[in-house]
């Protein structure tokens, strides 16, 4: 069992993260990963140049670790890996890598789903989209909270 939870201030390389997870998962039968990307357009249709992720000096890292550990305890997985960007993420670039490895696929699918539902609502970041039309803060929606709450 291993749990990796990292806060990354520079570019995130999903291929590298997958390679690390695959290396750790020798003996497992499944790996499921999710890669979140900074969207080039807001919900309102405005062009977005970058997503800015402000973080807390201590609580952000703690929150990512707590979510990753809770995931490892909740599902029958062998490895959990979360790498989350902070700072300015240009549109199209990765924000987050969330992956899990397990003996059988269902646990890994559920673990990855859980990781993202928790990160969306409980990871300590303040996000804003920046573009020609200005800057807009992004907060979780009711649907995001409902997605999190379905895990109990």
């Amino acid at each position, binding site marked *: 069992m291993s749990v990796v939870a990292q806060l990354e201030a520079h570019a995130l390389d999903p291929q590298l993260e997958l390679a690390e997870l695959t290396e750790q998962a020798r003996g497992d039968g499944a790996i499921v990963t999710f890669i979140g990307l900074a969207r080039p357009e807001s919900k309102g249709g405005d062009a977005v140049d970058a997503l800015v992720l402000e973080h807390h000096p201590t609580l952000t890292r703690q929150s990512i670790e707590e979510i990753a550990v809770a995931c490892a305890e909740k599902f029958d997985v062998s490895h959990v890996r979360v790498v989350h960007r902070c700072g300015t993420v240009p549109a199209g670039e990765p924000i987050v890598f969330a992956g899990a490895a397990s003996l059988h696929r269902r646990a890994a699918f559920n673990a990855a789903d859980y990781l993202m539902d928790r990160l969306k609502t409980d990871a300590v970041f*303040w996000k804003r989209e920046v573009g020609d039309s200005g800057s807009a803060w992004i907060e979780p929606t009711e649907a995001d909270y409902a997605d999190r709450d379905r895990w109990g």
Partner: protein
Amino acid sequence: MRILLYGRLAEALDRQIELDAPAACSVDAVRQRLQANHPAIAAALARSRAVVGGAAAPDGQAVGPGDTIEFLPPVSGG
């Protein structure tokens, strides 16, 4: 009393402000005083979580002039 703000609160006001507070009061009283002093962030403050010493601070928790209180607006990663 030192107040640390994040996200939209920091953007609207500042990352750190000093607040004159009585010798002993509650987290909620601090929140209400900030709301009264800065109406522009009153609504966002109402939705914010208070943190003292790195731990969540309920409204009734007692705080004093030497404390630092952080207010965290709703968070979102991913």
